[in-house]
């Protein structure tokens, strides 16, 4: 439980992932609570996507546990996955299915009632402005349309936990804004939203709490105020991030080049 009495919907404990000799994720522990938007930041190759893949059941941890909606992803995978919605960084979707067929497929995978599936498809296609393209094959969609289709697929079963890896990449400003509003609405309705992003402005404005991972280790977790107290007087998330992950020297190099 957190301070407001909400239970954690995502809970990782001492999560470790090795790829051969390489340690991708090392002893990562955090919780994401009901009604919370949690931003997950880190430099390229820091272990963000690996952590996300372990949360959604795409990768088996080397050690440690992940619980989603109270279910252990390793021992109760079906229950954990039924609570999850996932949007990957690259929206690989079956190219020869239409958007509508893909959503129907996902609805059936989650064992939703047929009538609910059809109603939900219409709602989501309309919401994401895909109703005109709903019957076209996905391989004719632009990157942004595929990203929106992936998001619609993740929302089909109205998940309690939504995990998004770089959700706004490739989206036009209108769609990006719509997604940000929707994530906030979901959190207000009691879902836990976990998102990784490189756009620090989004993290700063949207997220209730932020976790920063570097070289596989979680180096900071907290609200913006808590993160500011960790730094050396920095006020913006960008400065805090660079200070914590050792990127501040690049600003000095840029200054010299100027």
């Amino acid at each position, binding site marked *: 439980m957190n301070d407001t009495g909400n239970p954690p919907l995502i809970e990782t404990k001492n999560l470790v992932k090795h790829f051969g000799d390489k340690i991708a994720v090392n002893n990562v522990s955090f919780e994401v609570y009901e009604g919370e938007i949690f931003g997950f930041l880190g430099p390229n190759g820091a272990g963000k996507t690996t952590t996300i893949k372990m949360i959604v059941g795409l990768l088996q941890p080397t050690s440690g546990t992940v619980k989603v909606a109270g279910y252990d992803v390793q021992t109760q995978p079906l229950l954990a*996955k039924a609570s999850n919605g996932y949007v*990957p960084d690259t929206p*690989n979707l*079956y190219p020869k*299915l239409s958007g509508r067929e893909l959503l129907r*497929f996902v609805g059936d995978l*989650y064992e939703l009632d*047929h009538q609910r599936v059809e109603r939900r498809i219409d709602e989501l296609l309309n919401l994401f402005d895909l109703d005109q393209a709903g*019957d076209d094959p996905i391989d004719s969609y632009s990157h942004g349309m595929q990203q929106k289709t992936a998001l619609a697929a993740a929302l089909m079963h109205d998940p309690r936990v939504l995990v998004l890896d770089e959700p706004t990449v490739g989206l036009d400003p209108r769609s990006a804004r719509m997604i940000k509003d929707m994530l906030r609405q979901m959190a207000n309705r009691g879902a836990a939203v976990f998102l990784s992003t490189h756009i620090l402005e989004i993290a700063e404005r949207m997220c209730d709490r932020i976790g920063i991972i570097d070289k596989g280790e979680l180096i900071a977790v907290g609200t913006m105020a808590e993160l500011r107290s960790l730094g050396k007087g920095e006020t913006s998330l960008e400065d805090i991030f660079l200070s914590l992950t050792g990127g501040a020297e690049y600003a000095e190099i840029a200054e010299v080049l100027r």
Partner: protein
Amino acid sequence: MTDAFLADAQSVGNLWHYVGKLLRLRWVIFYSGFRRAKLRGKIGTIVLGLLVLGGLAFAFTLSFLLLRLLRSPGLEQFIGDTGLLLAGVPVLIVSAAFVGILLTSFGVLLQALYLAGDMDFLLSAPVPLRAIFIAKLLQAILPNFSLILLFGLPVLYGLGASEGYNVLYYPLVLLVLALLALAAAGLASLLVMAVVRVFPARRVAEVLGFLVAILSFTCSQSGQFVRFSNISNDQATRAFTLLNHLNSPWSPLAWSGRSLVDIGEGRWLSGIGLLLLTLVLTGGVFALSLATAERLYYSGWARVQVSTRKKRAIHTRRPVAAQDRELTAAVNRAIPSALRAIVVKDFLMLRRDIRNMSQLVTPIIMGIVYALLLIRSGGQPPAGRGEAPPAVMELMKNLMVYGNVGISLFVSWLLLSRLAMMGFSQEGKNYWLLKTAPVSTATLLSAKYLVAYLPTLVLSWGFLVAISLVQRASLGTLAFSLVVVALTIAGTAGLNLTFGVVGANFDWEDPRRISQGSAGCLSALASMVFLVISLGLFFGPAVLIKSLGGSEAFSQLIGLALGGAASLACAFIPLWLVRRRVSRLGEA
């Protein structure tokens, strides 16, 4: 960037310098790929090189034999005057080279200009557009031109030597072939742009791949029906006359070949005249095609597709009748929706991705060819030299009753090596959708099993029933054969799917390259061994007991019990053994 650099980059004099740079880049990519390849890949490339050298030796031998045949008195008796035929050889080869390069360059240029993804990078670099196009055209021509030289040059040079042609003939052969290749590639580039204007490039590549695969496979299999020993003098003469038609004085393709023969034989005036005509025509076609292609590509004409597809009307859902609703509800209750969803999705993907179709149509063509051969044999075993004991011939005859089962199972074996073996791999990079969904291993395996089993069963039964009807097989034999086929396919599907789990590969772009590693070979071997054993168990008792005069029905029952047990064991046990691997798939 300085003005001097820009002027230098755009000058015609430096065009070939940039072409050289771009071709060197291709070489560096190839060499770097070879250097970094695994040992197995390096050995494969070296073996391929040796095979090409072997092909060269074969081509020389073949041309030697061909020329000896053309000069033989026997052939003269068979088709009449061979002089005309010999004079037509250069025309034939040059025409074949032109058409061959035109067709093959189409596919290579489609890939190089629209699908390779490096055009934007090259166009944004300070490299003349013309140099990029010339490099792309050369890239398209070179492999096919080498092949044409490999097979055409020995014949053309052999002809020159045997007919005592002038020494100028030899370098001119190379020049003419090169010019024709360039003209063909130029025309191919225009053709690519015209097609891409109407259809999406990726779709064109898919259809082209399908057509080429089916055409080449059909051509290779049609040889089964040809009986060369039955070709008559008349048919041979007609075939050679048809070849002579290519050598028409009005055909521009014939001019190049005729110019070579005329120069070779010392008819300078006509030879040089025709050669000049060839040079002007091919050079003109190449230059015009190049300039037009560049302009069309750069202006975006070829990128803006003219939609030929009508926008689909939005379907309004018709009210579902109460009876239909009950039926749907019953189906929904009987089959879990996740299983149904995966099966439906896989069928849609298989049907819509035309790149899959060539792999799926191949077994059908093979089945039709062998079924026709079986029907043509009249169901009788080959007599050979007639020395086999009557008992063996009787046994063979009894076995031939089940020849239709053999063909049906051969078709199913081919089909299952695609549908079951690649059942998981075909998910490719989309596998995350299944892996993150609450779908149990049992459901996933069942769905993939059904996707492989059901169409194979339908197709194999179709073949079996069709052949049995033509052969007028008894109802009892047909019923027995149907059960045998259903059970054997169940076992083969189980084995193939097991190897498909073990060797699953999700990292591919083109479905024709799904299969990777040794799992595919092992799967084919294991399922073939299983087929032989299960057929022995199914038909052994039936054939033996019938030969000894026993009851056919009883022998078939014993066969069904033995073969059925083996098939069901292979359908379930291997999958049960690899069930734990399924939950870890895609984690490499």
